[in-house]
């Protein structure tokens, strides 16, 4: 299957605008370590990947801003916010799932899944996370939209930046930074709604009634959004993020990465016709620098794979536009695998014995010939991808299964240690226990507590009744833990030894749920 080539419209390269664009990290120049940052003015790109990125931005931002406002009815005893991290009460609500702190392993599982998901995606399609969905990328994109709207596209921005501080420059800068700050406030503002009832918190926040931690969080996130998205941008990816360094271990020769296909592009020429007339070999690249100009990282993809590249694919869009204009096939810059690239490179250079010869990959009409290898989707199904997939699915399934079967009733028992036992005046032995009943559903329940495997024993629950019994119905509050002191008494003749194992059994009234706790009953060493 041909992933990237499409017929061009057939004009010559004179219609292509040439851009003066220097990459920030040109391979030709040895960059001093302490050099000042070069400003980047990404040009607006247009094309398939840009369209897709707008869509991803819309979806991700919608998820982020809308989620806290979704409602989910859980009855009168629990909050009705669909996604809520209730730190004060230590509960996490996610639609139909409610998680208690001791069930935090679900979150750990999700994190493991996120990790394997990242490995999987990177192995298959390179740094797609970085290029499309990473918040840093999405917010920088959003900030660039603002920047373009206020200051114009690349050239206008460069001119403005280089120009003196006129009134025009001043107000444009003020407007831009103000909008950035507003976006920052909205970003930080949306975050806090995940931690409290959103509508109530919004009212409190606006009227100054909210907790100081809410204001501090918004202030902090406003600052980070503004600084990371507006001021630092690509430096966050290049210097702060560990992922560019890790990706090397994730990619293999069959991973799809944004690639400049120099086997068809070189030798690049700005004056192709003249060169061709002179009988020199000419590749498809017209050296228009469109790929450099649109790059949000400010790099030149033609220098090859580099850690700065977040694979946002905007250079593909820019180059495809140029190829369309000059009537060449798309895909001079394309998603390609190293294996495919190497095969084509070997073809163009006769297995590395000669310099790249465009004639070896092009036919007489200037189109790519049949020997050129194209991307094959089936390469996705390779052991490495399948193993990541399997691990990811296995964790997901295990968690889903566990979640579906988990009991919403738990019983914890703490045996009194001091004293370990008490001899009653009748000679009976008494042990004390602190019982903790966890009613993990948002409804009040009556839980029946009884003893198992301790014949003759009776229980006393002083807070419920003065009289001993063999079974107690304990009313529990919705979504709460109930703590009770329970005394278990065994007549002298029932004592079997110093330590007798037995069980506490807690049951839902209708028997639908139960919890047991293996406890022990202590008695004096010698039977008196």
């Amino acid at each position: 299957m041909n992933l990237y080539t499409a017929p061009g419209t057939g004009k010559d390269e004179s219609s292509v605008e040439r851009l003066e664009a220097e990459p920030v990290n040109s391979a030709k120049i040895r960059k001093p370590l302490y050099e000042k940052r070069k400003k980047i003015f990404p040009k607006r790109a247009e094309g398939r990947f840009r369209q897709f990125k707008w869509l991803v931005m819309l979806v991700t931002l919608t998820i982020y801003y809308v989620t806290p406002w979704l409602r989910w009815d859980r009855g009168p005893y629990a909050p009705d916010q669909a996604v809520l991290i209730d730190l004060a009460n230590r509960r996490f609500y996610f639609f139909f799932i409610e998680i208690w702190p001791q069930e935090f392993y679900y979150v750990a599982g999700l994190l493991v899944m996120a990790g394997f998901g990242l490995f999987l995606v990177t192995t298959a399609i390179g740094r797609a996370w970085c290029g499309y969905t990473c918040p840093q990328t999405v917010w920088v994109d959003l900030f660039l939209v603002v920047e373009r709207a206020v200051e114009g596209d690349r050239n206008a921005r460069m001119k403005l930046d280089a120009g003196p501080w006129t009134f025009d420059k001043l107000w444009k800068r003020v407007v831009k930074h103000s909008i950035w700050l507003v976006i920052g406030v909205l970003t930080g503002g949306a975050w806090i709604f995940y931690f409290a009832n959103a509508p109530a918190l919004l009212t409190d926040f606006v009227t100054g009634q909210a907790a100081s931690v809410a204001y501090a969080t918004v202030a902090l996130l406003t600052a980070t959004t503004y600084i990371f998205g507006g001021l630092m941008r690509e430096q966050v990816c290049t210097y702060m993020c560990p992922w560019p360094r890790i990706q090397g271990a994730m990619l293999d020769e069959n991973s799809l990465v944004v690639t400049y296909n120099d086997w068809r592009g070189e030798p690049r020429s700005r004056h192709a016709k003249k060169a061709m007339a002179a009988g020199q070999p000419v590749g498809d690249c017209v050296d228009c620098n469109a790929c450099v100009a649109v790059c949000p990282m400010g790099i030149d993809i033609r220098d090859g794979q580099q850690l700065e590249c977040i694979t946002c694919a905007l250079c593909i869009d820019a180059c495809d536009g140029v190829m369309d204009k000059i009537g060449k096939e798309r895909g001079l810059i394309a998603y390609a695998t190293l294996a495919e690239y190497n095969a084509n490179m070997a073809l163009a250079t006769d297995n590395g014995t000669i310099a790249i010869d465009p004639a070896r990959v092009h036919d007489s009409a200037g189109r790519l010939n049949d020997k050129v290898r194209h991307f094959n989707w089936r390469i996705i199904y390779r052991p490495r991808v399948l193993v990541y997939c399997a691990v990811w699915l296995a964790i997901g399934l295990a968690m889903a299964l566990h979640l579906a079967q988990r009991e919403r009733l738990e019983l914890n028992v703490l045996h009194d240690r001091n004293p370990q036992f008490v001899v009653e005046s009748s000679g009976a032995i008494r042990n004390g226990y602190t019982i903790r009943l966890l009613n993990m559903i948002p409804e009040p329940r009556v839980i029946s507590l009884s003893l198992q495997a301790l014949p003759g024993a009776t229980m006393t629950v002083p807070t419920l009744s003065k009289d001993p019994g063999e079974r107690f119905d304990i009313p529990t509050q919705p979504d709460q833990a109930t703590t009770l002191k329970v005394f278990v008494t065994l007549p002298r003749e029932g004592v079997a030894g110093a330590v007798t194992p037995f069980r506490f059994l807690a049951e839902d009234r209708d028997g639908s749920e139960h919890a047991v706790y293996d406890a022990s009953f202590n008695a004096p060493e010698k039977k008196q």
Partner: protein
Amino acid sequence: MADKHVDDVSGVETTGHVWDGIRELDTPMPRWWLLTFYATIVWAVIYAIAYPSIPLVREATRGWLGYSSRAELTHDVEKAKAGQTVYLDKIATLPLAEIDADPQLRQFAISGGASAFKVNCAPCHGSGAAGGPGFPNLNDDDWLWGGNLDAIHQTIAHGVRYDADPDTRVSEMPAFQGVLEPKQIREVAAYVVSLTAKPSDPALVEPGKQVFADNCASCHGEDAKGNRDMGAPDLADAIWLKGSGEDAIVRQVSSPRHGVMPAWGARLGDTTVKQLTIFVHSLGGGE
């Protein structure tokens, strides 16, 4: 040393020092690093002015903010005390039965009582209130002076055989050495043991019963079940304060030992004694 030397490869000035022909690049510090360094200096100055920092002969400088960790602790303690006042006021005014019936108040009293117990009562009664020879176990259901809230409160507040308190509980078992024949003491001991266990010589039980009726029943009761008004222990149960067995009983009949419990009412105040009462009552033997 003073000559300016620039490294050919990197184009960076060197420090001017030469070691065996090796020169060190005079690479400048990264700006962010330098700025952070200067910021820490500024911060240190501000901190030194605002907080206690510079040690002088007697004490350190106090700082503009007047902060001290001791004052902070005092403040925290006061805050905690203020939080307790609500409960403590209620405990001070309400009768014991009402405190015990209110779950929140009861829990507070148990916690407060437990901590007061560890400080004041644990030396004799043990940290788990399980007592020891001569010191009653407060977990069980055997009470010398009564195990309801008011009786426990009375015992804690005024003590037992504590002469300094006029309302203290008083009882004294007479020494029967000299009053009874040694053989009679043996017999009565065998009888008492026979109420709950096997005596060493069954032949002693019958005469012992008569000795008991003549000498002991007035306090310990006809059935040897004791008498709480006099603090006379129940001799027909499984619990022995001064030790079990015939020899221990012979010793206690011949020349009895008596424990003394101090009166805590005046020392701890009634609110604390009430909390102690609720705590002791909650241990499992309360009536």
